[in-house]
Each structure stands twice: as structure tokens, then as C-alpha cells.
């Protein structure tokens, strides 16, 4: 897939979406979309932008589709005593969505671990679930996770879970390929011991081995540590060209970048899309990351978007007063694919909407033109590579097809 093709202006989703907003009439009924994301605690910054994206998508269709009123509820799957996602709360959210007859779609979860809890519940309820952030391959892809995955998440046998982000197995491979292209011969791999980081680092490691990159070290960090100076010393002693950290801003991606610099490490630093947000640069300090920090991201960065995508950027900017982050794009896309599903559904109930969303093909989204495959994964395999320069992410190239 070439850049030009990707950058095709994103067309109108469907006619009804546009007209419904203009026809002012009493709503036929209410359809509710809920999202369940960790809103309390450290992931709050990321989920804020997801929710902004969702709200923008709903506002754009005027809160109405075919005379049905679209309601949105923003649920929190974190609890104050945990300060992070809480499985009990996630189950509670999923159950209440399942019980609420007007609820037709579930946007979530943020953490793949939470998805494991929610998926069987929503599957039994026949509720469509679209995740803007889960990347653990086992949730959808047979043979990638445990032996019983993903069947265990589909007790009814039907696929109701979809995701619009590429999974770890893609990103790890692309990142390693890119590292090879950048001329890396020795790499030191780190991960944050979370589901996301462990997955990507494992794939990265395999691919790097395949490409003949020497792996001089593999460490799992403590994501709550105050600094990583002793780690940097260890890294420096091994003298790699690249340090690959599979983790997120929350799990100290910024701090590692900072400590690598202050510890005198001169090589490159690469991180996955969990760090593709302004907060990463702010946490790491632009002067520490500039010119040496590479970021991969599933899709094109917002500023590279044209047409419908550019429109999204400008309306996001005018509505929320800030540039959209990667997660805002994901949130927006997740909401739009659901709204399109609602518009296309023959019957405006769970089964109809689920069928419509599952049938999504050649969707003109801000992430490109893509479809859902039989497992519920996005067909989009576009990833882009960024470098941090001048305190901003700068687009370098498209990775993969």
C-alpha cells in the first residue's frame, strides 16, 4: 500500500449519516453507545482523548441516525482504590451494558486484560464491542495466544469483538524491520511487563533474530521505578545501537528515554504506539528525545491525514483546543465504525447492528480504507514510523504494506 493511496480523502460514510442530522423529527427511539475505559488514575490522560474522539464522532452525526437518538455514556472501568482498571468494575460495566436494552454498542476496553473479562459477557448478550486500544493478539487471532484463545471469548461462537488497531504481532515485526533498515546491528530490548509490552517485545525479539540483529540484552523493567540509571549503565556496557522499549508513557517510556540520555547512551531509542502521544515527549523531555527517538504507530499520524482525516483534525482542534492524539484517532474511528454500522443496520437492534458492523468492508476511515476480517481484526496493516524532532513527532515513512 502506497502513501498516495492511503492519503485518499476519506469520503462520506454513507448518505443516511449526513441526512439524519438535518431532519429534525421526534426520535423513533434511543440507541445507546457506551464506552468503558479507565477514567480514574494514570491512564486518564489517554482515555480523555479517546472519549473526545468518540464525542466528536457522535456530534458530527448530530446525535441522530435515521431518526434514532444516539446516546453516549462514558463509563469508568477503574476504581479509586486501584487507580487503574479494575476487573470487578469492568465486569460490572459489561453486565450493566448487557442488561440495558437500549444499549447497542460497547466501545472498549483500553487494557487487553480488561477485554478478557468483558468479552464473554458481551458475547452472550450479542452486543457489538469495538476496542480502540487492545492489541493482545490472542483476543482475536487463533494460534497467537493460548490454545483456547480466542474461542473462550466467544461462548456463543459468534464474533462480536472488533478492533481497529493493529495487533502486537504486526507492530513488533514492523518495528524490527524498521530497526534493520536504520542499520541497527545490536539491540537491547526492554519491556514493561504488561500484557502489551511483553507481547510486542517477544515479537520484536523473534523478528530481530530472524533479521540477524544481535540481541545484546533483554530486560523486563519495573514500571514504577523512579529512574533507570542502573539499567542504562548495563545497557551502555553492552554497547547496542538501539534500545527498544515495548511499553507506554504510563509505564515510564519517557523516563527511560531521559535516563538513556543523561546516562550518556548515544544510540537510538525506539518505542511502540503506546508512546505515540504528546505526553510521551513531555514526560521524556524534548531535548532528550530529539533526533534519536523512533515511534511506530498503527495508521497514519493525524497531521498526515488529508480530506476527511484533515477535516477530523481541524474539527477536533476547534472543539477541544488541542491537536488530536493517536488515541483520539482510535476513539473517533471506533465510534464512527459503530455509527456507520447503526446506519447500515437493517433492524436497529443489537443483532442488526452487530451484523452491520461485522460486515464493514472498505470503510473509509481516518486510518485509511479497511475492513474487518472474520476474526474481527482490522484489515489495515498500515503502520507509520515517526521520529521525535524539535519536540514534535515527525512522520518518517510508512512501514509495512
Amino acid at each position, binding site marked *: 500500500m502506497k502513501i498516495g493511496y492511503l492519503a485518499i480523502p476519506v469520503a462520506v460514510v454513507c448518505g443516511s449519516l449526513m441526512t439524519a442530522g438535518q431532519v429534525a423529527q421526534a426520535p423513533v427511539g434511543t440507541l445507546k453507545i457506551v464506552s468503558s475505559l479507565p*477514567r*480514574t488514575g494514570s491512564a*486518564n490522560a489517554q482515555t*480523555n482523548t479517546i*472519549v*473526545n474522539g468518540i464525542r466528536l464522532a457522535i456530534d458530527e452525526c448530530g446525535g441522530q441516525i435515521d431518526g434514532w437518538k444516539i446516546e453516549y*455514556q*462514558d*463509563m*469508568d472501568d477503574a*476504581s*479509586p*482504590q*486501584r*487507580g*487503574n482498571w*479494575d*476487573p*470487578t*468494575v469492568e*465486569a*460490572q460495566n459489561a*453486565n*450493566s451494558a*448487557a*442488561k*440495558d436494552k437500549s444499549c447497542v454498542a460497547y466501545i472498549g476496553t483500553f487494557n487487553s*486484560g480488561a477485554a*478478557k*473479562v468483558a468479552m*464473554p*459477557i458481551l458475547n*452472550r448478550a450479542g452486543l457489538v464491542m469495538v476496542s480502540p486500544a487492545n492489541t*493482545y493478539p*490472542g483476543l482475536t487471532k487463533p494460534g497467537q*495466544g*493460548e*490454545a*483456547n484463545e480466542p474461542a*473462550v471469548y466467544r*461462548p456463543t461462537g459468534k464474533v462480536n469483538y472488533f478492533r481497529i488497531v493493529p495487533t502486537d504481532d504486526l507492530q513488533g515485526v514492523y518495528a524490527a524491520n524498521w530497526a534493520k533498515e536504520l542499520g541497527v546491528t545490536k539491540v537491547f530490548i526492554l519491556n514493561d*511487563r*504488561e*500484557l502489551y509490552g*511483553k507481547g510486542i517485545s517477544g515479537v520484536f525479539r523473534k523478528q530481530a533474530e530472524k533479521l540477524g540483529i544481535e540481541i545484546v540484552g533483554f530486560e*523486563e523493567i519495573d514500571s514504577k521505578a523512579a529512574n533507570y540509571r542502573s539499567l542504562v549503565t548495563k545497557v551502555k556496557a553492552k554497547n547496542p545501537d538501539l534500545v527498544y522499549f515495548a511499553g507506554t508513557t504510563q509505564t515510564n517510556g519517557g523516563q527511560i528515554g531521559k535516563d538513556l540520555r543523561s546516562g550518556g547512551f548515544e544510540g537510538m531509542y525506539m518505542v511502540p504506539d503506546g508512546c505515540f502521544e504528546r505526553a510521551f515527549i513531555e514526560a521524556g523531555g524534548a531535548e532528550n528525545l530529539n533526533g534519536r527517538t523512533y515511534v511506530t504507530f498503527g495508521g497514519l499520524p493525524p497531521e498526515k491525514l488529508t480530506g476527511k482525516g484533515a477535516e477530523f483534525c481541524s474539527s477536533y482542534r476547534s472543539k*477541544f*483546543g488541542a491537536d488530536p492524539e493517536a488515541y483520539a484517532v482510535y476513539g473517533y474511528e471506533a465510534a464512527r465504525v459503530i455509527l456507520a454500522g447503526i446506519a447500515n443496520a437493517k433492524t436497529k437492534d443489537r443483532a442488526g447492528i452487530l451484523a452491520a458492523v461485522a460486515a464493514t468492508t472498505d470503510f473509509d476511515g481516518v486510518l485509511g480504507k479497511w475492513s474487518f476480517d472474520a476474526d474481527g481484526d482490522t484489515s489495515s496493516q498500515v503502520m507509520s514510523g515517526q521520529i521525535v524532532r524539535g519536540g514534535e513527532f515527525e512522520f518518517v515513512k510508512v512501514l509495512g504494506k
Partner: protein
Amino acid sequence: MRWRPGPIFIILALATCIPLLDQILPVELQLSEAVRGVFLYAILALGLNVVTGYAGLLNLGIAAFMAIGAYTFGILTCEIYPFQLGFWSALGLTIPIGALAGFILGAPTLGLRGDYLAIVTLGFGEIVQDVLKNLDVVTKGTQGINPLPAPTFGGHEWTADDEYKWYYLLLALLVVTVIAIRNLERSRLGRAWFSIREDEIASRSMGIRVERIKMIAFATAAAIAAMAGGLSASILSSTGEPSNYDFQISILALCIVIVGGIGSIAGVLVGALVMVGLNSIVLVKATAWMAAHGIGSQGNVLLSPNNWKFLIFGLALVLAVRLKPSGLVPPRIERAPQ
């Protein structure tokens, strides 16, 4: 003496009515699922109450035993391991394994003075998470183990949809735990625990084997916490990830015990209702209501209701001990071991 229903009985009797009430309430007001969480934490806190309330040993790592219970249950039942026990036998096994874990931690450290023991338990809570995360091969690391079975009755395995069955099962197990702990409390053992809490030197001089008695308290607490862990894993059908059993869970359990009334079973039940109720009922419903009515915005950090949750939880703790320093339902002396 004529039997009068005590506060424990009244609380538990009221609890049986909630699912019936839910039948007539709209979805937003239904409580039974959230109350299930209260039961789970009540069981956990009852365990902690044995060690902290009765024996007076500050334990800041009770969640570690919950994690051990959950992972034991997971490994013994999940279809990706060869053991594949059923719900009841696996839940039964979490109890001795939890007790064993309590013994392993307790054996070298119970000679320590109060707060030295506290830091050891706190550290234990952290490393259990670390070990569960690091032993990928055994525990599947951060993936969590799933699916886990629910109890079967008459060949029908429950799912999360059978929520009232779950509700009553948890309630029944809570009642069993309450009875078991009351039996222990009102025995020679309970008396020994109380005496150690009151005055360790005096009880030693009366021939109480302090280390052994402390050890039993520790292991009992660990066993109950492990059972709570197994139960919670079964309800969620997943062990979740190791960091789901972190320090904050231990802290919540401790707050339940102390806010409710140290060493009082009724206190623990009330404490669980208040603390967990605040967290997973009041705050959840309040933020949902505010969001539905367009109150607050998330652009501003102060106007987003979710950002106030820590503050409200903290204030509740400070106010609770300020107003009721000995707990909401302090233990009554004449009810103590006889």
C-alpha cells in the same frame, strides 16, 4: 436467655432481599452486582480481621494471598493446564494452599515486632505480584488465566448471566465464613488472639505459645483471603493480571476492618458495605448520573467527576476515623470469646 437477632444477622438478612428488589428497579438502580463485590471484600476483610483485628498484627499484604488463591484456582481449573479440577474441589484446595503460603511467610517473620512485620507483609505483597508476573511459563505472566469454571449444580454450569445464583452463593459463603470465624473467635484460640493483642508479655507469661498462635492467625487469614481470591477469579472467569492484587487492595481491606471496627465481625460487614459501597456503588452511580445530565466536563481537570474519586475516598477515610475512632460497629466486650 432469649435469642435476639444480633447486628450480623440483621445485615445478612437484609442482604438476601436485594436481588428481589432489583427485579422491580430500573437497570441504573440495580444493586445486586455491586453488592456481590461487597461480599467478596467482606470475606477478604474478615480474613484480615483475624490477623489484624484479633491478633493485633498489622498485615499490609493480604492481597498477596488473594492473588495466590486466584492463581491456584486458575491453574487447577483452567483448560490450558492438565489439572482441570471442578469449581468446588479447586476452591477447597485454595484454602490449604493459602494457609501454606501464610505459613511460609509467617514462619521466619512472626517473631518481629508489629511494624517490622507490617513492612515484611507489604514487601511480600509486592513480590508475589512480581513472581506471578515473572514466572511466565507457570502463571502466563500478565496475560491472566482464563476461562475459569463456575460452580456446577445439576450439570448446569453458571455463567456471569446467572447473577442471582452467584449472589446467593457468595452470600452463603460469606455466612459460612462468618460462622467459622465466630466459632474460632469464641474458642480458646480466639481468647489467645485477644490476649496477645492486649498484652503479649502477659500472655506469654501465662503459657500462651505466642508464635504458634500468631502463626495460626496468619495462616487462617491467608486461607480466607485465598478463598476470596479463588472466588473472585471464578466470578470474573479470569485471574486478571497480577497487578490486580496490588497494595491498594490490601489497603482497602485494612480500611474496611478499621473503619468498620477492629475485631468486630459486624463491623467488618458494615465497613465493607460502606467502603466498597462508596467506591463501586455511590461514586459509580454518581459519576454516571452526572455524565448523563451533562454535569462536568473533561476538558478541565477540576470539572471532571472522575478526577475527584481519590479525594472523596480519602476524605471518607479521614472523616470516618475522626468521627468514629473505634469503628462504626466497635466490638462489644461481652460478645468477645466466652
